[in-house]
């Protein structure tokens, strides 16, 4: 990709990632739900692609847009919120300070990135491909991988235990 194209792509990704995740709850209930909430996740996936991590990008879309978003929409439908539940409630007292802080922090971050920029090493075509990543994952990080499978098993048991409770009010 040319330098200019890469630059334009980066700023589009940055804008989508930072500005998209502020949906009102009403828009979530409407059919815009997934396009609204998935914005930052798709933008991050694009950023992974731009950083030579295609495998991570694919997993990002599968896990976040595919699994987690569907799950959250499913819960929204399941608990079937009444209209008075949807009224947007935020802490308003700190709003001005928070916006100012956000703008200053954003500016500081990107000025820092420009000041301290250094070239990244050029990497081969296999960098970030399935084979390269899997080789490291299943050798150097094999133990972490196994511990993770245990963690997921516990999560499954916990979720089933939470869902299986009969009636809270009679306890």
């Amino acid at each position: 990709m040319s330098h200019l194209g890469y630059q334009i792509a980066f700023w589009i990704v940055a804008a989508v990632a930072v500005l998209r995740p502020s949906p009102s709850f009403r828009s979530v209930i409407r059919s815009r739900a997934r396009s609204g909430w998935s914005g930052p996740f798709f933008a991050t996936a694009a950023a992974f692609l731009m950083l030579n991590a295609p495998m991570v990008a694919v997993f990002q879309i599968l896990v976040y847009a595919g699994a987690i978003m569907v799950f959250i929409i499913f819960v929204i439908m399941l608990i079937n919120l009444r209209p008075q539940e949807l009224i947007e409630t935020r802490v308003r007292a700190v709003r001005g300070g928070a916006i100012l802080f956000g703008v200053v922090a954003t500016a500081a971050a990107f000025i820092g990135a420009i000041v301290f920029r250094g070239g990244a090493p050029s990497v081969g075509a296999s960098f970030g491909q399935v084979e390269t990543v899997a080789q490291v994952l299943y050798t150097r990080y094999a133990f972490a991988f196994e511990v993770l499978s245990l963690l997921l098993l516990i999560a499954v048991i916990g979720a089933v235990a939470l869902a299986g409770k009969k009636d809270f009010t009679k306890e």
Partner: protein
Amino acid sequence: MITPHHFLALSGVLFLVGAAGVLVRRNALIVLMSLEIMLNAANLALVAFSRMHGAVDGQVAVFLIMAVAAGEVAIGLAIIVNVYRLRHTIQVDALTSLKN
């Protein structure tokens, strides 16, 4: 010219967005989503560092974080559904039984 440092800056800003969401929003579902955005920002930082050093270890760490995030969402949503059944609200301000 865009370097991995720019992606690091983006990850910092994204983390701030998520943190602000956790602090400011009062709907438990949106708080959970903001948590996911913070995890995403950490993932972006890891991938940027991985590119910066030309080593795939950072990308491996991203997989581990993604699995943790998926487990966290499964448990978190189960808790939210149970809280809603019990209290008929998911506003975090309403959950004060441990306050005193």
